[in-house]
């Protein structure tokens, strides 16, 4: 029949570009990282995020379908610096033998206190300067994994990096205009270390940066005293820790709620912080507004 | 007064007695005897409604007579932090209900009941420190206080010394003379059953009513027959 050769030709035509432009199956540890990969990879990457929107990247309970996704992945992205302690076991269990890209490679790390111990602060992406490094590492990893689309990745990557750099500058200027004495923020999650360092903002919080340690009365009392002393009047609730504790501290010290910040997780699609760029813009704008 | 309508008693749908037919007349004093496992205690519990019958029914008159139950020691929590006085005062439950107080008159009655069973010196002791016989006497004192029309006693004489036995039988006889209906589960002890005008003997396959002095007894239409004495 005549249709058969036509069908064969058509499928051959379709197969050729498909063979050339393969899709990279990527798995990212959490939503922020997944968003970065998606922005750079575009239509040549399919990303799955293990820790979903509003989730906590420090403590993650994997399900069998996560192991499955890993086994079938071409490339795995983690943020690194000790945050994804759960990833090693998951990789081993899933049998994934490919490359695990550490997106934070090459940044200047900082230390912080957790439960009396000094550890490396893993929340590097909250400083847009580091964000540029993340994006660069992601871009290079994608190019290495799928060289045929190098040009595509490079083009998207550069545009994205330019956007991030511009955001970094904007944030620096915005905060510089606020007098230093007023550049203080109370939030229940200590994940803004790099942010504070980069943009000169001083953060206070009631618990250590790990979301699952429990507060002692002396911690809480100490913070209330400090707030009253420093005359802070705005606080921010994270989207994954106990808001009642923050409210308790605030009512004792006279401070009010300033809205939500998003340091560790993006919102669902359609929410006010559903991309890395939007989350950053939101965080900075809200903080600036609260300092006025 | 208590009519048995083809009653079969047991646990979880398993009957342990044959069909029982008959009546415990008002003011009767019946010994319920039989070998271990013949269903004596089960029957007693079914009579006052603690357990549902496997088949058949029990008819009690209206208004329902007041019931006093004497438990086996195994059913009691002896280490509970009560005093003997409190234990006996429990007998006033029917009269006092949930909130009624124990006034001076009632307090006096409790002490009198304790004296009657010769346990007055032990009023402040805890039941866990009493011997079997002593505890039984205290439980009898509670029975006296309850002043009920129907007395159901589950093996009240097991492990009791002979002095106590005499005292307790005397108390039961007293209650009987006062017009109470008594049904008492016993092991088949000739000396004891001699004190009971009516006897219902149970075993796996048939039951047998007998009456000591030829007076009114339960109707013995039970399977396998039985003799009217």
């Amino acid at each position, binding site marked *: 029949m005549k249709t058969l050769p036509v069908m064969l030709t058509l499928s051959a035509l379709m197969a050729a570009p498909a063979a050339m432009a393969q899709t990279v199956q990527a798995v990212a540890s959490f939503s922020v990282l997944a968003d970065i990969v998606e922005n750079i990879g575009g239509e040549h990457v399919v990303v799955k995020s293990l820790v*979903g*929107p*509003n*989730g*906590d990247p420090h*403590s*993650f*309970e994997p399900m069998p379908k996560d192991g499955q996704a890993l086994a079938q992945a071409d490339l795995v992205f983690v943020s690194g610096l000790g945050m994804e302690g759960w990833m090693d076991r998951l990789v081993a269990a899933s049998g994934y033998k490919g490359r695990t890209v550490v997106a934070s490679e090459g940044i200047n790390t900082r230390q912080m206190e957790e439960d009396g111990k000094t550890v490396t602060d893993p929340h590097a992406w909250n400083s847009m300067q580091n964000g540029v490094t993340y994006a660069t590492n992601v871009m290079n990893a994608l190019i290495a994994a799928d060289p045929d689309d190098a040009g595509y990745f490079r083009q998207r990557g550069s545009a994205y990096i330019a956007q991030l750099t511009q955001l970094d500058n904007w944030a620096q200027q915005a905060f510089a205009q606020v007098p230093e004495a007023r550049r203080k923020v109370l939030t229940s999650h200590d994940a803004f270390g790099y942010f504070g360092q980069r943009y000169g903002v001083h953060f206070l919080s009631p618990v250590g940066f790990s*979301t*699952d340690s*429990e*507060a*002692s*009365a*002396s*911690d*809480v*009392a100490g913070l*209330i005293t400090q707030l009253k002393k420093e005359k802070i009047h705005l606080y921010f609730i994270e989207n*994954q*820790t*106990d*808001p*009642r*504790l923050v*409210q*308790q*501290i605030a*009512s*004792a010290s006279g401070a009010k709620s300033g809205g939500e910040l998003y340091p560790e997780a993006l919102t669902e699609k359609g929410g006010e912080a559903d991309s890395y760029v939007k989350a950053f813009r939101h965080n900075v704008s809200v903080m600036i507004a609260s300092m006025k | 007064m208590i009519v048995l309508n083809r009653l079969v008693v047991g646990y*979880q749908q398993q009957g342990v007695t044959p069909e029982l037919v008959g009546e415990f007349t008002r003011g009767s004093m019946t010994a319920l005897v039989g070998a271990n496992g013949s269903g004596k205690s089960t029957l007693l519990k079914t009579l*006052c*409604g*603690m357990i549902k019958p496997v088949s058949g029914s029990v008819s009690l008159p209206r208004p329902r007579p*007041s*019931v*006093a*139950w004497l*438990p086996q020691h195994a*059913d*009691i*929590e002896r280490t*509970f*932090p*009560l*005093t003997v006085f409190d*234990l006996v005062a*429990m007998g006033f*439950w*029917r009269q006092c209900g*949930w*909130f009624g107080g124990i006034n001076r008159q009632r307090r006096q009655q409790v002490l009198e009941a304790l004296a009657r069973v010769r346990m007055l010196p032990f009023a402040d002791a*805890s039941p866990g420190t009493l011997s079997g016989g002593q505890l039984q006497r205290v439980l009898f004192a509670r029975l006296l206080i309850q002043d009920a029309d129907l007395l*159901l006693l589950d093996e009240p004489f097991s492990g009791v010394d002979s002095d106590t036995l005499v005292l307790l039988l005397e108390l039961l006889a007293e209650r009987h003379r006062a017009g109470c209906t008594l049904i008492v589960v016993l092991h088949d002890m000739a000396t004891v059953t001699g004190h009971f005008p009516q006897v219902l003997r149970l075993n796996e396959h048939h039951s047998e009513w007998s009456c000591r002095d030829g007076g009114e007894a339960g109707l013995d239409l039970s399977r396998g027959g039985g003799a009217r004495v």
Partner: protein
Amino acid sequence: MTLIEPFIAFGFMRRALVACIALSLSATPLGVFLLLRRMSLVGDALSHAVLPGAAIGYLISGLSLVAMGTGGVIAGLTVALLSGAVSRFTPLREDASFAGFYLGSLALGVTLVSLRGSSVDLLHVLFGSLLAVDAPSILLVSAISSLSLLLLATIYRPLVIDAFDPTFLSAQGRWTSPLVHGIFLTLVVVNLVAGFQVLGTLMSVGLMMLPAASARFWSRHLSGMLLSAMLLATFASFSGLCASFNLSLPAGPAVVLCAAFLFFISILFGPCGGIFAGRRILSMAKE
């Protein structure tokens, strides 16, 4: 005066103390009765059975007192009722059916909370936020506590009778004994639910049972035991909060740790059966 100072200076300390004391007063008498009726582990089981109800409340309305509380009470009562029914109509005894239902309930609760995405919230539900007790929480806990005490006083007499001699009430009527048992279990569930807002599901049963177990060593009479239990729990609340403040310990666990410490002291030195109290009497007798 440094012990009292934190309570004067900080509202959250006062509120935490009031919440704990309210619980100490209403939950510990229930604990004493659980102990005397040989139902100690039932308290523990019920505190876990409560979890899926709280989880569902949480899934619907987040960390809302009313939603989680109502859900918790329903779940706890359901498990209690189901266990009772199963043990009544099947060969399985009450402790075994309880074990089955509460374990299933706990697993269901963990699953439900995990579904929402964060195990952090699970930890808050399990461990509570004693330092986050605010004015509405206090009102709720105090209201529950007062009502619970009132209801306990109402059923006191039949409860005592039934605990000592279960045959007594059931011989006289079919419904008194199950009614009292039902009200009692309801009170236990309600107090556990009130407790988990403050101390979490794992810890609230500690404040209910530990002082009750300790009270055995301080009095031979029921009224004495009830009073001792309440006093011990109050003391544990106070010292636990002090320890949290002065030694930087997490607050909820500190309170229960103090209760446990008092328990050990009671075993060793309690006047009614304490190990060393007995020895002293023996050596005095020898002299």
